[in-house]
């Protein structure tokens, strides 16, 4: 495990004296074990184009397969940002390049699901249930990654947005929060009575959701009483992901017992005109995550953030300067003891016989291996077979964590 000091030294953004969040919280349902380990999962919905995020610029095949869409090699105009002489990041991922060079960002190449589906819906469902190919699984892996803790904080598991994603559904309480500022009941008069109605309802699902809601309202109300200013001049971009991550940072710094958080970002399904859309999306994506890391400063030692998308896109571009549905993808991770500055996993190549079904980047690393190493090594969860039932996890197989 890396020590705080090493993380500080490596983080050019860390500023002495900032980062220690105030331990003001007293009413967090007896939960607030301050400084617990936290996992933040980010989902790029729509199947983000791995080959244009992590660019294999040494491969001639890449340029043959994508005559109008390929990202040029480093050094050329609009060229990739070199990582290791063979792979580079899309130029719009500049903030990621800096994090990589500071050994904070880890990249996993050619990872994804062993299930061959190219359906957005099924693939997202599998990646969130944690059981590719099995639809009957109840709930999701992020919920199962929570430790049993009857005294856990009401906001130990939070998804930003109007709905609770499959990944966070399950036996443990989890809350969806559209916006922290609006998370309260307008009518004081009705509040107590509604709470009582829900607590006494024989409708178990709604009684449960009601309890989660009222518990979260009380806690978030106390968090809202303080103003929030991101530390280290972190600038979250507008849009959806930036504000989501800013609010997660706020919950983390409130020391209110947050353990896992989920945020998503949509619109990655580029069937046409990809070159005009992807750069802006990648910029917002990487700026949001970099702002989060900057905002949390040395606190990132307790946090791991990981990104995923349901599958990658076809290796060859389609007829409309876009890409159709593919297979292998790319994941990014940073924080905690993540071994950054490294591309993990095995590159399978782009020759016809190396491609999955002759057309897509193959999957050489199961996404559950990546998540499993983070859940066991960072969150300290001992029962991975419960989190990913049926998956043969190899402890330390990738070496994601130091």
């Amino acid at each position, binding site marked *: 495990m890396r020590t705080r000091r090493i993380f500080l030294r490596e983080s050019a953004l860390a500023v002495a004296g900032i980062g220690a969040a105030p331990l003001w919280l007293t009413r967090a349902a007896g939960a607030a074990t301050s400084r617990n380990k936290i996992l933040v999962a980010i989902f790029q*919905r*729509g199947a983000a184009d791995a080959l244009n995020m992590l660019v294999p610029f040494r491969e001639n095949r890449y340029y043959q397969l994508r005559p109008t869409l390929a990202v040029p090699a480093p050094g050329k105009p609009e060229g990739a940002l070199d990582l290791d002489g063979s792979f580079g990041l899309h130029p719009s991922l500049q903030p990621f390049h800096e994090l990589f060079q500071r050994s904070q960002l880890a990249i996993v190449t050619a990872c994804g699901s062993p299930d061959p*589906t*190219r*359906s*957005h*819906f*099924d693939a997202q469902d599998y990646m969130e249930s944690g059981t590719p190919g099995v639809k009957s699984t109840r709930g999701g892996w992020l919920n199962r990654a929570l430790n049993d803790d009857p005294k856990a904080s009401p906001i130990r598991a939070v*998804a930003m*947005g*109007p*709905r*609770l994603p499959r990944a966070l*559904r399950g036996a443990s309480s989890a*809350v*969806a*929060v*559209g916006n922290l500022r609006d*998370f*309260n*009941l*307008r*009518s004081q*008069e*009705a509040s107590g*009575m*509604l709470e*009582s*109605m*829900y607590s*006494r*309802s*024989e*409708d178990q*699902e*709604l*009684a449960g*959701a*009601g309890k*989660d*809601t009222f518990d*979260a*309202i009380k806690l978030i109300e106390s968090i809202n009483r303080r103003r929030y200013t991101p530390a280290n001049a972190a600038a979250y971009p507008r849009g959806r992901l930036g504000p989501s991550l800013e609010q997660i940072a706020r919950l983390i710094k409130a020391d209110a017992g947050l353990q896992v958080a989920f945020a998503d970002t*949509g*619109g990655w*399904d580029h*069937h*046409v*005109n990809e070159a005009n859309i992807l750069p802006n999306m990648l910029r917002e994506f990487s700026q949001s995550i970099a702002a989060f890391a900057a905002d949390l400063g040395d606190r990132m030692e307790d946090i791991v953030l990981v990104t995923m998308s349901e599958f990658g896109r076809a290796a060859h571009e*389609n*007829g*409309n*300067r*876009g890409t*159709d*549905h593919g297979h292998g993808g790319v994941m990014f991770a940073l924080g905690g003891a993540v071994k950054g500055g490294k591309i993990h996993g095995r590159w399978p190549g782009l020759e016809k016989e190396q491609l999955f*079904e002759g057309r897509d980047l193959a999957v050489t690393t199961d996404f559950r291996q990546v998540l499993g190493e983070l859940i066991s090594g960072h969150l300290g969860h001992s029962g991975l077979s419960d989190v990913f039932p049926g998956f043969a996890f190899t402890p330390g197989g990738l070496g994601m964590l130091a």
Partner: protein
Amino acid sequence: MKRVQYIVAIGVISSFSLLLPAAANPFHRKLSKDKKIQHALDRLSFGARPGDVEAVKKMGLEKWVERQLHPQRIAENPLLQEKLKPLETLALSSQKLVQDYPLRPPNPENAKQTQSPDLRSLLTPMQVRTLRQGSPAERLALIQSIEDEKREKLLAALPGQLRQMVMLTAPVETRRQMMKARQPVAVIASDLMEAKLYRALLSERQLEEVLVDFWFNHFNVYMNKGADRYLVTSYERDAIRPHVLGKFSDMLLATARHPAMLFYLDNWQSMDPRAIENLQRMRRRRGPGMGPLPPLPRQARGLNENFGRELLELHTLGVDGGYTQQDVVEVARCFTGWTIQNPRQGGGFQFAARLHDRGEKTVLGHKIPAGGGEQDGLKVIEILSTHPSTARYISTRLAQRFVADQPPATLIDRMAATFTKTGGHLRAVMRAMLTSREFFSEGAYRSKMKSPLELVTSAVRAVDAKVEAALVLASRIEQLGQPLYRKEEPTGYPNLSEEWMNTAGLLARMNFATVLASGQLPGVQPDLAALRLDQPGVEKQLAAGLYLGSPEFQRK
């Protein structure tokens, strides 16, 4: 309304317990007569209004259901017609919409983001104060009192937030005038949303409206994608609405050919990769002076699988319906050349032979011989609409919406058999479902969560609210997580309850309930007397808010 009192009593007094009888198959347990009526109204309408239960009882439930299956036999509510009348975009062609409702106003002077100085030149200081600090009603009265020509200028000059507030609650003509002055195209979406809500709230043909919502969502398109701003009006009106109780294959074909779908799932740009070379050769051969060839879509260079895949996965067979990646490619090849004539001008469907892949194709084991042209796509529609997987998938989707999240297999079997036997006649499939014992069973009764649209409309109907500003409701539905006509993904909104069961949604529902009941929702006046809540010691507004925010009211 016994149920209402009972629910409120729980909130106020509370303490009771309920023993569930040991259950056999809940889909075999019959409902009492009263529950049956309540259930039918919950599922086949956007919620019961005061008096609806009694009306159905009087008519007889079976007769009521059968009438709902024949909407043309039901006289329409004159109030609805009155509400729809000013929404003139509903009846216009896509082409006319492009002409009359451009992205920016033709007279740029009105569009200028002018601020307070202009306000002062138009109004007296007193009037400016009223505009800034007055109540919504006072503001509106002021705007109404100004002569037409000046008002137009004033509306264009209103600063952002004030404008928004005035606009949401303004009478429909004023609202449309304001939008036209700034961003005419926005009128199209707001007309659609208002119409959808007024129909849900006021139409006597409730099942038809529920079905239009269901089928639009099944064949979802996203209104904010480029040209679709101008195409969705016709899509719902011409491709969905006429077929919801007709033949599935007609609706499937109508959606596949509609420019809104062709644009949304990119098929209008999909073409035979060899077509470019052919065209270039033709150009060379033509020589100078022979007139220009029609232009190609800007991005078009080859095949696009987007439509082919969603057609199989979402519209017909279902993801487990037994197709392969190769089938996706073959279907996409069949539909090359199904394009749009001038999409930016609201043009219609066009088959462009020069973009079509003329080769032989094999779809789901069926050989489609070379040279079929436009027939290739029609053949695919036929294969898909008669495929047993489609019968099952469509039946399952319907049963998930109308019966239960996990509908019993016996019911699906019967519905699918009806689908196949009748050549995909949706009225027959609906009737098979609505007369089944599974539909009127304890397993189905109150088993589903209302969607945000259903929650909002059923609450407004329950308190018999007078609605002058349907857009206020639309924005509430959006806050609850279901922006109308703006679901970006082709999957549409989920039919399953668990999707709506979460803290953020529940909180927003409770807030909506209390705001609606207290009469603070601008342009939406509830009639609490209609609810007949006589709870001693509890104020009426509070009691109504508790009822609409209760766990029971979230179910249908």
